[in-house]
């Protein structure tokens, strides 16, 4: 049903259609509207046969999901940023135990300094936890990916996180076609657990495994993610047949076929990027864009095929590997091993700094001109940074960097000491 609705609410409705049996939630901006809406649906009886557990922390929430999933229940939770980190140990545990939990990550920056706005540092910091990571470009896709996620998770017995940009998507109200219960029921069968805590057939889950077998057990998670590389496109195709629209998959190219320069990105920024690509194409430039939708497993072959013929690749990322540079670009480079082309990393939008069409246009023109460096920080005030570094090196204790920089840009009143 077509509605004008907030992204979070639509995601909540979609999760409810998937008939979860246990929802465990701990609030954190900007995921709150999702868990609040699900709470309403459980309370009013709209969502039946579902237990809603208000956890005492994110670590508690993921642990509740682990117990629920191990007992054969379809389990769901949502978090962001600091909360995702707080459940880090449990994330690895869930993946290692092969529990098909689905979680929404409302992408948000990680402190310090504390920041509630969007970037990808949270999910990127846990890219190796063993969880499958899918990135939504629009709220419609966020809705669709949750439905696909439960199907995928239960098919490979691995947990799946659906990443959607915090505030930009979660708090945007837009036109969304919400799936109907019958459609979801036809697409998503009942949860048939591969392992289950059951008094009729007792088994031991979570045994200690020494050097004799750990390697093999751990490798299984990787093997399952490799299986997912085949399954993700299959599920996306089946979704398209059942729901009438394209959603998900491993990658999506936009005007890449004959493009000399391709910009690569994840998530909602693709919308703004497409507008810029269209504009530049009008002006005769050979440009295209590639969205990576499945970041884990990383679709090495598909990325190589999509980018291999280009002369220049610009990876735009909303996260920074402190001490080295790009995260997504490192993965993209791996896909392009042996192929020679001009590769550029652009870190942008950290902590919610808006990425404008205008800046993207300048960026791409600079790239086309051959003037783009290997690593760029888009719209970052380099002078402000330099001044702060000089201050810090000048002898007297400089105080917290955040305070002095904010004072410089005039946000903090300089009067109080």
């Amino acid at each position, binding site marked *: 049903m077509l509605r004008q609705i907030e992204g979070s609410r639509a995601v909540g409705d979609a999760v409810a259609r998937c008939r979860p049996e246990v929802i465990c939630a701990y609030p954190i901006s900007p995921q709150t509207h999702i868990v609040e809406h699900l709470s309403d649906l459980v309370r009013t009886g709209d969502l039946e046969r579902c237990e809603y557990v208000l956890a005492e922390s994110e670590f508690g929430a993921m642990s509740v999901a682990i117990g629920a999933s191990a007992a054969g229940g379809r389990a769901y939770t949502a978090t962001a940023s600091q909360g995702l980190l707080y459940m880090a140990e449990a994330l690895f545990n869930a993946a290692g135990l092969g529990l098909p939990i689905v979680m929404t990550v409302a992408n948000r920056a990680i402190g310090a300094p504390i920041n509630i706005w969007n970037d990808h540092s949270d999910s990127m910091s846990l890219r190796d936890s063993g969880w499958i990571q899918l990135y939504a470009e629009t709220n419609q896709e966020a809705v669709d990916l949750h439905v696909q996620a439960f199907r995928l998770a239960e098919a490979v017995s691995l947990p799946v996180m659906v990443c959607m940009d915090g505030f930009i998507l979660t708090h*945007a109200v837009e036109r969304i076609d919400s799936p109907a219960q019958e459609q979801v029921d036809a697409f998503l069968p009942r949860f048939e657990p591969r392992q289950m805590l059951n008094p009729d057939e007792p088994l031991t889950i979570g045994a200690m495994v020494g050097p004799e077998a750990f390697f093999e057990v751990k490798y299984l998670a990787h093997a399952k993610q490799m299986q997912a590389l085949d399954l993700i496109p299959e599920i996306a195709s089946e979704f398209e047949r059942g729901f009438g629209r394209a959603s998900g998959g491993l990658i999506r190219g936009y005007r890449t076929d004959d493009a000399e320069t391709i910009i690569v990105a994840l998530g909602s920024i693709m919308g703004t990027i497409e507008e810029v690509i269209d504009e530049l194409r009008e002006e005769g430039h050979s440009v295209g864009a590639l969205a990576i939708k499945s970041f884990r497993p990383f679709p090495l072959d598909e990325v190589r095929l999509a980018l291999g013929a280009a002369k220049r690749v610009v990876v735009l990322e909303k996260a920074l590997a402190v001490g080295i540079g790009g995260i997504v670009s490192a993965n993209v480079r791996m896909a392009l091993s042996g192929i020679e082309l001009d590769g550029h990393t652009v870190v942008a939008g950290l902590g919610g700094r808006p990425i404008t069409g205008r800046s993207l246009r300048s960026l791409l023109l600079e790239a086309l001109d051959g003037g783009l460096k290997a690593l760029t920080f888009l719209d970052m005030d380099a002078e402000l940074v330099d001044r702060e570094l000089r201050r810090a090196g000048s002898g007297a204790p400089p105080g917290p960097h955040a305070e002095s920089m904010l004072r410089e840009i005039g946000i903090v009143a300089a009067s109080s000491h």
Partner: protein
Amino acid sequence: MFQVRIHGRGGQGVVTAAELLSVAAFDSDLHSQAFPSFGSERTGAPVTAFCRIDQRPIRTREPIAEPDVLIIQDPTLLHQVDVFGGLRPSGKVLINTTRTVEQLGLGELLERSEPPTLLTVPGTELAREHLGRALPNAALLGGFAALTALVTIEGVERAIRERFAGAVGAGNVAAARAAYEFVADEVAEVAGA
């Protein structure tokens, strides 16, 4: 694409205004995108919300830097925050106030080339009258409907009633309708002048 930027303070329903506007546009079978710009949420702090309206699906998601229309829910922001930043030539501004444009100190805006159209509406007073509360957002949406053919006052009313039930909904609808008529008259005057 038509871009609207709404300025106000926390607690005045700025975010809801943008959302309802997008629902009204949806009602006219248009694509629409509404989202807030967040500061720390606290009552009284400046809040900005955005709404894009278009015939085709809307892809871009950056904050609106060049609005076609500005809605100013709280005139105390006028000389504190750069509410007019990026306003397109010949753009429209709807201000919630009982004072005149000159009294607000905005005369110099009218001296620009391709000056904006500045319209006022006593949104807070209308809200107090019809709703019993000083919450002007519905009134301003009603006023907005008189500024453009993209949304209809009926669409605005439907959006309000969908969100607010019973007496609250009815009160907001009445305020919107009153503001619509006020601004429609103003527009006609300006056109005639």
